[in-house]
């Protein structure tokens, strides 16, 4: 079990680094898809089966397809990308390291380091029950969010039309 975790951890970090280092956004996107699959695997190790499944379907499936689609749509004009700028990279690295080290140390000392003892199983049934009973209102709110997103996408993605010339 532990070996799987560490293997997945290494893959996860490698793929994450790949996302931000690949010059070609297509490769980045593919690395991200891989990364999302690994996350799904990690979910599974934590007995969050439903979430793991949704991760694969929604994230790796729907969202990433959308991303790839847009990438392809715009690909013709992506030549001049030069991903790294040393100044930003240095500053970001220092801040990121500081962030990770500080929080890591605190997490390590602060949170209970014992392996989780609960036998919580995130099955579809269990999650669904909570989601549709107690979390029904946020769930409705989430639908509102999606509606807003649709409306917004429509507003933005629609070709301009009927603009009055001033």
């Amino acid at each position, binding site marked *: *079990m*532990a070996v799987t*975790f560490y293997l997945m951890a290494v893959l*996860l*970090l490698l793929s*994450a*680094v790949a*996302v*931000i280092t690949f010059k070609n*956004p297509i490769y*980045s*996107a593919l690395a991200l898809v891989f*990364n999302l699959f690994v*996350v799904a695997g*990690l979910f599974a*190790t*934590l007995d*969050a089966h*439903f*979430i793991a499944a949704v*991760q694969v379907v*929604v*994230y790796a499936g*729907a*969202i990433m397809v959308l*991303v790839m689609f*847009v*990438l392809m749509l715009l690909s013709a*004009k*992506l030549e001049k990308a030069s*991903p790294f*700028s040393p100044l930003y*990279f240095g*500053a*970001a690295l220092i801040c*990121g*390291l500081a*962030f*990770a080290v500080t929080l890591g140390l605190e*997490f*390590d000392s602060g*949170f209970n380091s*014992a*392996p*989780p*003892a*609960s*036998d*919580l199983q*995130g099955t579809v049934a269990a*999650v669904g029950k*909570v989601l549709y009973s107690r979390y029904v209102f*946020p769930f409705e709110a989430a639908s509102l*969010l*999606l509606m*807003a*997103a649709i409306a*917004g*996408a429509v507003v*933005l993605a629609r070709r301009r039309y009927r603009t009055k010339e001033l």
Partner: protein
Amino acid sequence: MVPITHYLILALLMFSIGVVGVIVRRNAIVVFMCIELMLNSVNLTFVAFSKQWGNLDGQIAVFFVMVVAAAEAAIGLAIILSVFRAGQSIETSDAAELKF
């Protein structure tokens, strides 16, 4: 079993990588993907905590985060498209007309 803190630190590292990506990359779509990385690491954290506390709130939260991510994808990509239409570029550094 793997200690929960390892999950946390793993997620933290991934979060940091995502942050660094947002900062160093200029391609808007890659930046968007880096934000997805960050969200995913938070998701991982949630699930880990959910496991530790033995309640499903964390997993439900992950579900909602995914919804948000989906919405973000829709809107973000639409915005990227409209930026591309306006300036024929999705480099964030090209979108710097507004300043000072």
